[in-house]
């Protein structure tokens, strides 16, 4: 990616979908390994776990979406693997629906307050 001056090291975006009740635990685990920030969003998750049925006023229906929490974390490329591993081990319950982790490249990260770039921005 020539078009960006690489002040600071390359950073990665880690997107993870986990079970809501694991959020606090995962956040603590990540803080303890030095992650300093993230964005958390409630999402409706669809996956193999989905599809159990409920009854409402006598009518059966399939619950296609299960509540999940999505984490978006940008970290220096160097930390990425450790972060993925930490999330995986912490969020794991060995039950279906534990979630997924995805890693993406980031061209550039900026801290709004200071204009710092890339991993200085985190």
């Amino acid at each position: 990616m020539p078009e960006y001056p690489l002040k600071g090291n390359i950073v990665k975006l880690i997107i993870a979908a986990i079970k809501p009740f694991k959020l606090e635990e995962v956040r603590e685990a990540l803080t303890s390994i030095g992650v300093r920030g993230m964005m958390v969003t409630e999402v409706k998750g669809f996956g193999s776990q989905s599809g159990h049925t409920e009854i409402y006023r006598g009518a059966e229906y399939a619950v296609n979406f299960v509540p999940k929490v999505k984490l978006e974390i940008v970290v220096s490329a160097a930390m990425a693997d450790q972060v993925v591993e930490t999330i995986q081990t912490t969020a794991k319950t060995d039950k279906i629906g534990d979630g997924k982790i995805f890693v993406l490249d980031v061209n550039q990260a900026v801290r709004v307050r200071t204009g710092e770039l890339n991993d200085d921005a985190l």
Partner: protein
Amino acid sequence: MKLTKTLPLATLVAIAPSLVVAQEAAVATDVTPYILTTLLFLIGGFLVFWMAAGFAMLEAGLVRSKNVTMQLTKNVALFSIAAIMYWLVGFNLMYPGDGWIIPGIVGTLFAPTSLEAVGLSASDAALDYASVGSDFFFQLMFCATTASIVSGTLAERIKLWPFLIFVAILTGIIYPIEASWQWGGGFLSEMGFSDFAGSTLVHAAGGFAALAGAFILGPRIGKYKDGRTIPMPGSNLALATLGTFILWLGWFGFNGGSQLAMGTVGDVTDVSRIFANTNMAAAAGALVALIATQVLYKKPDLTMVLNGALAGLVSITAGPLDPSLFGALWIGAVGGLIVVFTVPMLDRMKIDDVVGAIPVHLIAGFWGTLAVPFYTEDTSFLTQIIGFAAIGAFVFVVSTVIWVILKVTMGIRVSEEDEINGLDMAELGMEAYPEFHKG
């Protein structure tokens, strides 16, 4: 009982039961019973008024959030229309005294209600009954209740204005006419039909108007898909529960006030019986619905429990005085069972009743009417069925005609896109919960 309702308009005073009892007890002053019965109507009236809020909350809680503002708007508007139409036409059409156009069938048309003069003197008062003002106030609330029932069934897809036009006709003409047959001293009361507080006259009647509408209007988009029923869960069960508690409270006025007298030991003691029985029937209906859904579906269904309490109340409404507490219990319990079984049944028939008003008001209303002879003397199952059928047929047919006319003239249903996006944004441009993310 009901007959005495015509007295304030008729002139006869002599044979009024309440007064008689009073004199037996050789106690009542001339005016105290009048004051107390008037007070009963005022208290009963504001309690039944409160039911309008109950319906509004129940329905707002059971529709999806994209239709909440509309449901609230309909409920405020329908009550307001009922208040005006019942004054303009309804009250004297329902209580014509001797002013029947067609004896026993159609009362006085277009005679707006007027009340007694200010500072009425005792000599001019219907001392054996109550003030016209209090009677009008109390009766008006029953009329509005009938309309509230309709709005729940037709929620989430009917246009605002056609609905309100129907409400005007229902509250101004349909309800007053059918109710006059019994409470106005019309042919049903002659026949010996018995409906103390209106399981048929108010609740089933509202249910029939709703049923007619549901047929003409059709189900919500996506409600029935390749033979299956797709639930559309209510957006706010706290609101729905609040609405049910409000209705439960208002029902004490609904049934208790229908004693139409509080000036004697006998009357006030009867009102007490009615309060106790009404509460028992509601409790039994709720509890049975709780147990039935646990047994049938393995998980209790709160919305069914709420419907069950209301079905218990509707069931006891035709005869809240005569049954023992145990009688109230089992009559209400059957009402609770009825909703649990008829709610899915209606769905199988593809009749989309958003809040379950038809099982609660029409079907439990039939049950309550039918059950009267178990405890009330001089009533017969046959007469009860005939009365229910007469009122049902009349309300259903007339309502159908009006719904059809509205449909062909102005259309009664919103566009598909509007229905999917919700009536709130489409018809009102205003969300009930603009800040809460919808799912």
